[in-house]
């Protein structure tokens, strides 16, 4: 359906994508995996004809997409951005916006709005002001807005990041259902390994704007390459023995570190804690979170607006914080800090 040939995209000095080529078949569910700043968003914007590549070409059904012709691709695809952008007015009006660009009857517009709002579980609050919704509801709304258009190609940028469990379940169900039932081609960008393994049919690992690996989830997760292992390490993946005590899993991941989790699996377990779920503080944090570990910062890696801190608590954990927090808290290598995360943030792979 779509073919990318040697796509590069530069913003001034910054190279966002470099020599990216792949084909996307009709009805495929492709996951683009990669750390923040690896070019995932740029790739989606090129696929959605919102950006033009600096080099290379995009072909849709063997026709080159360029200039005036961008509309052709734009009308067959739609992007759901990572950072939700809502239009003013009601939930309903947000969905209506895209539908009004199509040649549809008023009844058909209403029918589609009701249908997609029900799909994402927002039908009861259709008349609420969109900007008053919770984060998870806003993300569901932006998905609904895209679904209403019923495009052939759905491009999702980190659709599951920062979602509450209810929204996460809905979004995952909608994405896989859409691909399965309507045959919609889906490209999903994520840095979350769990979702990548659960949802995708094919995976691409993007690092520094280049495709470093491509294959099925099976090869990615069971015979991982060196790059994949390195990427996984930056994502807090540990193996250990799980023991259920009072309904809470205690996982000994070595180095004297015992992690608590809410799953009910006993024995050998591989766990993952998303770096953005870890809170960094200078003192002990009084909170309901079951995991609080004292350690020392051993590395600071800045990428765009976020910073990844390497904290040694016996095992090395990666915590993602904003650049602003880094500055305001005066964090630096060698400093003693506490890392805190909820038992429910620990996911079994």
């Amino acid at each position, binding site marked *: 359906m779509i073919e990318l040939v040697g796509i590069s995209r530069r913003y001034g000095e910054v190279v966002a994508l470099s020599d990216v080529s792949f084909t996307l078949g009709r009805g495929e569910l492709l996951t683009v995996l990669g750390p923040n700043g690896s070019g995932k968003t740029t790739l989606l914007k090129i696929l*959605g004809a919102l950006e033009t590549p600096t080099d290379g070409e995009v072909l849709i059904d063997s026709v080159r997409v360029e200039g005036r012709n961008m509309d052709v691709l734009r009308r067959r695809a*739609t992007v759901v*951005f990572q950072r939700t952008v809502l*239009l003013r007015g009601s939930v309903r009006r947000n969905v209506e*916006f895209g539908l009004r*660009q199509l040649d549809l009857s008023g009844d058909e517009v209403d029918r589609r709005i009701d249908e997609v709002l029900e799909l994402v579980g927002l039908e009861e609050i259709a008349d609420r002001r969109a900007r008053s919704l919770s984060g998870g509801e806003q993300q569901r709304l932006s998905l609904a807005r895209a679904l209403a258009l019923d495009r052939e190609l759905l491009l999702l940028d980190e659709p599951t990041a920062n979602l509450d469990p209810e929204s996460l379940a809905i979004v995952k169900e909608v994405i896989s259902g859409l691909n399965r039932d309507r045959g919609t081609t889906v490209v999903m960008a994520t840095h979350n390994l769990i979702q990548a393994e659960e949802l995708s049919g094919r995976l691409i690992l993007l690092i520094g704007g280049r495709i470093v690996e491509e294959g099925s989830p099976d090869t990615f997760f069971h015979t991982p390459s060196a790059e994949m292992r390195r990427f996984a390490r930056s994502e807090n993946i540990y193996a250990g023995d799980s023991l259920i005590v009072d309904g809470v899993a205690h996982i000994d991941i070595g180095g004297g570190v015992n992690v608590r989790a809410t799953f009910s699996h006993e024995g050998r377990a591989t766990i993952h804690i998303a770096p953005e779920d870890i809170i960094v503080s200078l003192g002990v944090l009084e909170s309901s979170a079951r995991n609080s570990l004292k350690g020392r910062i051993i590395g600071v890696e800045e990428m765009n607006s976020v910073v990844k801190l390497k904290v040694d608590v016996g095992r090395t954990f990666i915590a993602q914080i904003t650049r602003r927090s880094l500055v305001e808290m005066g964090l630096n290598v060698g400093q003693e800090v506490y890392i805190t995360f909820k038992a429910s943030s620990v996911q079994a792979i």
Partner: protein
Amino acid sequence: MVSALWEGLLRALSLIVMRDPTLMEITLRSVAISGLATLFAALWSIPLGILIGLERFKGRIILRGFFNTLMGMPTVTLGLVLYLLFSRSGPLGFLRVLYSPGAIIVGQSLLITPIIVSFVANTLEAADPEIRSLALTLGASEMGARFTVLSESLDGVLLAVTASFNRAIAELGVALMLGGNIRGVTRVLTTSIALETSRGELELGIALTIVLLTIVGVVNLSTNLFRRRTHP
């Protein structure tokens, strides 16, 4: 002094309540002149603001700075420049517009042009850059996407227009120098306030001031209500 003020206030209120014909005439003329000036200024200033706020071209920053600077232009300076242009011996003297309502309309619309341009440009620049991308990916055309950014920033545009009308109706320099405060022709609220006060007719001056403040207040209030109604 306080009692004079009090007395003035009471008589002023009675003038307003009795709908004093002179007061009514001056008020309506003020609203009409400044309203037309705002309307005309909006016609060219909003597109100009959109251009500076949304498009990227050479000289944009300079143009932006130019309008920002002009926002602080003293009304008498503009009045003087236009007076020289419109006076009998001036380059535009043949138009014979000096000391007519038209001259005030031209003057006030030029006075508020930089306000509208700068406010609109600012609002659009501050708007979420992703709104344009969002509109495009939801199927809007390039023009439609621009329009979406504008309509999402309607508050700022409305504020620009309201602030400009307030500035126009409350300014004195242009109205005095280009209109000449001719009774029944170019006498507006601010010029009469200045005249009546200098003549010692405090109560009429106070009455006119109350009317002026009320107009400004009502305009602000109704824009706020409109904003709430259309975008809850």
